[in-house]
Structure formats: C-alpha cells, structure tokens
C-alpha cells in the first residue's frame, strides 16, 4: 500500500533531524552529506509512494487527471511535506549551506505525525462529483507549493528573529523561542504518540504526553514542555554563534524569508484564491461565498500583502518583517488545518 511507503519516507525525514544536529555540533562534512542523503533518499521514496498511490487511484477512477493523489486531507498534508523537503534541498544545493535542515525535518516530522494522529483516513477514496474537476489539480497543487514556500520562510524568519534579538525580554524573542520550544516538544511527542499507539485508528495527538489520562505523566510532560521552552529562551543566542560558524548571517536568513514569500505569494494568489474562485464558480455558481476556508485564505493573503507593504513602502527592516513571516505561516496553518478542525465549511476533504 502506498501509505506504508510514504510512512517509510516520513521515518527518514524524522531520522534526518538527529543527523543534522550531529553535523551542526561536530561540523563534520561527512555527517552533513549523510544528513542530506537521508532527506534526499526520503524524498525519492516519497515520490515512489506518490506514484504508487497514483496507480491505486487510477485503478478506481480510470482517469489520469483524476488520479493525482491530492484529493483528501492525508494526501494534501503529505504533498505539502514533499514540497517542503524538495524546496529545502533546492536551497541547500543552490546556496551550499546545510543550515536549517534540523528545523525543516522538525516541521516535516510533525506534519507526518499529524497524519497519524488526527484520525485522518489514509485509504484511497473515490472522488465525490464536486471534486471531479481539472481545477482540483491546479488549485490544490499550487496552494500546497505556496504553503511549502511559506513554510520555508517561516523557519528562516523564526531563526532570524531568534538570532537578531538582543533583548531577551522583548516580545519577539519570547514569542519565537516559545514557538520553537513548543515545536521541539511537539516533534518528540508526536514520535512517542505514534510508537505507543495501541490502536492507530483512535489515537489522539499528545495522548502520550500532556494529554495522557495519567495525571502524573501529564504533569511531567507539561514540566518538560515548559523546561524545553525555557532552555530555548535561555540559550537562543547560542543559535547566533552556531549559525555564524556556518557562514549563515542574518542577511541570508532575511533574504531567504523574503524569497520564500515572494515566490509563494503570487502562486498562492493564482492557485489558492483565483483558481479556487473559478472552481467554486464552475461547481456552485458562486466565486466567493465567505466560506470559512475562503475567508481565512483571504486573511492569509492580507498578512503577506502587509509583509510587502511594510518591507517596500514603510521600509521595515530586519526582525520586524520576519515576525510577519512567522505570523503569516501560523495563519496559513490555521487556514489549512484549523478551519477543518474547528470550523465548518465546504472544504471537508471528504471525511476527517
């Protein structure tokens, strides 16, 4: 089955994280190559799984255009991870800097984990009539390519803020380090969640840590979470030293943050908003209906529009703009997952 192949790819993405950490600590180039190879190999297996899944869907739908595996929540999450990894590997190759691979594999690992922990169906599902449109392909692929670009700019933006903040009591610094600490905790928690899952169908996120029925484990987990956040906050400045030793300066991070958004924004506009509107117009006879997902994608669009205006017209520099990139991606995640989990709407992705 294709999702088993894709799980193996996910495992490799998660494995890449400790290898990257060893590389950062030892500065041994061989280890760096192994880390990159692990990610690349994971991506290759992932692409193989993608093709496998395409074949499985083709067996049901008998149409090439209708069998690209991006039709439900599981498939789209997985596609997002693939775009993120490929985009990151491209940056690594282009700038010859194995810089923030650790954080990429954290985001990839969390996302892969989510597919196991949100109770999402991984089965190949037949398409409901509304999804039988060529706009599906255009709308969904472009949306996720842009989300991945925003994801990369989120990571570089976050690092940029943590690196550049001199004042440890400033909101920017506290916010960013808390977020990074939480991501670390979530990454570890997701792995333990999956390993200890007795029934993969009903497993809940954080069930092994802060959401554990045992009060003792829950309290310990909360303490570990707070401790991780504290450590990140306390030693955030070390990041500056480490990254500088890899010739990664704040200019590079700011530049990648900008490039990610500059690349993602037009693609998000055309694929997410315009193609989505055209498709809604074809299917329901209305191009815009203030459906929660539509509304939140507009809010996402506004946040990034704000980024450009702040940067080019107000002349904001440095960490201020990177903060917008961080907030922008949080809003993007909410548009993509939060709306489906917390609000009701048309973008049901079949069933959760």
């Amino acid at each position, binding site marked *: 089955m294709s999702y088993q192949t894709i799980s193996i790819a996910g495992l490799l993405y998660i494995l890449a994280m400790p290898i990257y950490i060893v590389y950062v600590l030892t500065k041994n180039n061989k280890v760096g190559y192994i880390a990159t190879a692990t990610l690349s190999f994971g991506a290759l297996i992932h692409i193989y799984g993608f093709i496998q899944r395409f074949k499985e869907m083709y067996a049901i739908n008998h149409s090439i255009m209708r069998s690209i595996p991006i039709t439900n929540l599981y498939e789209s999450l997985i596609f997002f991870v693939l775009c993120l990894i490929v985009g990151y590997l491209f940056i690594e190759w282009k700038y010859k800097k194995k810089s923030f691979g650790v954080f990429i594999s954290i985001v990839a690992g969390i996302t892969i984990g989510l597919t196991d922990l949100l109770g999402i169906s991984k089965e190949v599902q037949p398409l409901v009539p509304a999804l039988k*449109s060529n706009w599906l392909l255009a709308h969904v692929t472009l949306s996720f390519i842009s989300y991945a670009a925003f994801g990369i700019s989120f990571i570089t933006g976050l690092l940029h803020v943590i690196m550049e903040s001199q004042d440890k009591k400033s909101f920017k610094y506290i916010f960013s380090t808390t977020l990074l600490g939480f991501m670390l905790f979530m990454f570890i928690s997701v792995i333990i969640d999956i390993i200890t899952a007795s029934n993969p169908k009903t497993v809940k996120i954080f069930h092994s840590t802060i959401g554990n029925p045992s009060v003792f484990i829950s309290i310990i987990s909360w303490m570990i979470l707070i401790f991780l956040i504290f450590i990140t906050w306390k030693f955030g400045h070390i990041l500056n030293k480490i990254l500088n030793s890899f010739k990664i300066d704040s200019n590079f991070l700011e530049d990648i943050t900008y490039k990610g958004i500059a690349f993602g924004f037009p693609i998000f*506009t*055309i694929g997410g908003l315009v193609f989505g*509107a055209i498709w809604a117009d074809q299917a329901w006879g209305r191009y815009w209906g203030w459906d929660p997902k539509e509304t939140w994608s507009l809010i996402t669009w506004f946040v990034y529009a*704000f980024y450009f205006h702040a940067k080019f017209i107000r002349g904001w520099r440095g960490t201020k703009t990177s903060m917008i990139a961080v907030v922008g991606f949080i809003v993007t995640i909410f548009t993509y997952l939060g709306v489906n989990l917390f609000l009701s709407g048309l973008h049901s992705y079949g069933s959760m």
Partner: protein
Amino acid sequence: MSKIDRWNEKIWNFFASVDLAIALFIIISIGAAIGTIIPQQTDPEAIVRFFSKFLPPVSAMKAYEIVNLLDLNNLYHSWWFTFLLFMFALNLIVCSTDRLPSLLKSFKTSSHPLPAQVLEKMPIKKKIDNIQPNILDKINGILKNKGFSIHVFETQEGIQIQAQKWSKTRLAVYLTHLSILIILVGTLMGTFWGFRGSMNIVEGTGLNFAISDSGKAIPLDFEVRCDKFEAEYYENSSIPKAYRSYIRILENGQVIKFDNKENVIIEVNQPFSYKGITFYQASYGFQPSEHAEFRFTYFDKTGKEHKINARFEEKFNIPGTSAIASVIDFSPALGIDEQGKLFNMDTNMINPAVLVQFDDKGKKTEQWILTRIPETWVTPYGKLKFNELWGAQFTGLQIRKDPGIPLIYIGSIFLCIGLFISLFLRPITLFVTISKDNLIFYCPSSKTSLIIEKQINEIINKLKGENI
C-alpha cells in the same frame, strides 16, 4: 492657503497613506475572522446556543444583543464591513493617483551623475584593478547585451555609468492595485444586477420560476423541463459517483435546440448557460409524484426485448406468457439486516428494488427484483429487468445571473500578471565608475542583492574573458 484647502490636503493625505492600508488589512482581517467563528445567517436561537457553549445564559443573551447591534450574524453584508471594503477601495484609488505621477515623471526626467560620497555609501561594491583603455566600450556593450539602458557621464573623478534594467516593472504594482478595484467593481455589479436562486424540478415536470435565497420567486421567461435525472453510486456505498439532469428549455411552447440537440445535460462542474442565466447541478432527492412509473425491460425466449412501463399496483402482461404482473412494493435502497430482514437503507436510489407479484391463472408468486443485481432479474416467466422508477426524484438546480463575472475574470488575470512582474522582475540599478586605474561597481539597494551580485560577477567574468 485657505482653510478648506488645508482640510482637503489633510483628508487626501489620510487616504493616500500606506498606514491606512496596513490598518485596513488588519481590521478587515479581524472582522472577517470573527465572521468565521460566529454562525452566519442563522436564526437567533442558533447564535444564543453558540454563545451558551462557553458563557453563562445571561452573558449569552448579552452577547447576542451585541451580535444583533453590529450585524455580526450577517457580518459580510453588514454596513460596517461594507464600509471597510469601501474605505479599502478608496485608499487604493487615492494611494495610486498620489504616487503614480511621480513614478511616471521619474521615467521621463534625465538623470544626473551622483556625487562620489553617495556612491561610497552604497551596500554593494566590487572593484577591478589594472584595466585597459578600451574598457568603456566593452562594458557598455556587455551591459546593453544584458538588457540595461545606459547613461554615461563625465565627472571629476572619471567616467560614471548609470545602468538600469526592468525599471518599468515598477508600474506592475499599479496593475495589481487596479485589478483589485476591477474585482471589487465586478462584485458590486453582481450584487446590484445579478441574482441567485434554486429550483427543484421533479422528473417529468417543468418550472418557469426559481426561488431566491430570501424566499422570493424569480420568474424566468422560459420553462426548464427535467426529462430524466440519474445518480450513479460507487459500488456498495452511498457515495455518489456522478449525478446529472437531462434538461429541455421551452420558450413560448417551442423547444429550444442547442447544437441541434433538444436535450442538455447538466452535471456537477458542468453548468449550462442560457440567456445570461447559468444553471448548476447542486442537489437531488427522492420525491414520488402522481406520474411516477416503474420501467422494465422484458427479454422473451427468443431474446427479443420488450419495454414495459407500469404505475404502482397497475397490472401488466408478461409478453408471450399467460402471467399478469404488478409492482406491490418498492425500496430505493434495499438492504438486509442481521436477522435477514429486508429494510430501506437510504431515501436515495442507491439500490432500487421492486417486489413484483406474478399471477398466472390464480397461482400467485412474489419476487424482489434489484436493478444492480442481474441474478434477481431471472423469474419463472423469463428475464425481467427493473430499469428505474421514473418520476420519483427531483433535481436541485442552482441558478445564477451575474453580469460582473467577466470583470472578475479580467481582474484575476491582471492581478496574477501584476504580481508576477512586480515580484519576479524587480528593477535593477547599477553604477559603474571608471577612473585611471580601476573600475568599480556600485549598487544602491540590498533588496535584490543576490541577483545583482550574480549579474555583476557575470559582467566581470565577461570583461576578464575578453581581456585574455
């Protein structure tokens, strides 16, 4: 300057400011987000119920009063949200008219050499020593090849070249802003001169009006007849695979032909337009009518096919036999429960089945015949296939008229073009000074630093390549 002029200027500057734009981004976003949380366009009880989830009853009522006051249950059409969008449009217009003239002027004005101390402050510098006398022609040639437009000046320090590329792409931002205005105008046109409605047409009947979202009748000057509706389901499931309506348009009693065909098929994602009104396949449902009939195909011993149509409990002959048959029970979706009892799984025709009673000279037998299971078609009196119960389903069509659609599409295309140009083709400006013994590149901005450094390196490589 009179008082009025000063006020005018103040108001103008207020609307021309980017701060207002940014403030509007934030306020509109927050407003729109509230609308995704509070239930929209529902009855008051639903809203009170929503607030009761996390507030005590008294506060929930208070919250409802606030919702009512600010129209938060119809937020996107409320006076204040509309006002915000209007402000947004005004801000766009004023901002663009305020900035565009100076940009256009900058294209026309001839440039003048920059003083050396200004150049020295620029973030990017690259130096080449030991140059040849003919370097000026060479570098001009290379820059022109790369698509730069060039101004050459003689200064006290030597020669200063100003090279610009893609400077006109600054206009793309205005195209983007214009496109947003076009889209807003398009939505306004739809609001004022368009309508939306729905019509539920039972198989075999027609309608010449639709019901609007607010419950009013929208008369059409033609009749829409549904000849047949069919839904296909995925095997062993109630997930619809496809559903479609076979429609005819009648005007003044005449059937209108499209491509020499009377029938039009409407499917999900395949709407149909007539006289500026577009019809969309939206929903369907089970609704038996007076004229509903069961349709069979009977295969006699020679393999000849006979079409048989009969109403409920109406007797019909089985051709070539002495048997008389009638339909005495029907199920749209026949299932078998754990005790082996038959029951209805669904109101939709997922697995239509009829119970046929045969009467052969007083000898009565009964048999269930299921559309999707050929084994059940075999009866003691030959093969009788149940095709469908025609006239017992309605098709739900959405209808829409929206004269703003072309503008929406044009605006969207402009928006994408504008964004791609303004983000992927950023203007590049270079300064080159040539003195007696060296040549220095300067670049004023760090926004596109990496691209420019690459360009400069290419130019240098070309220069060196020609020097060898």
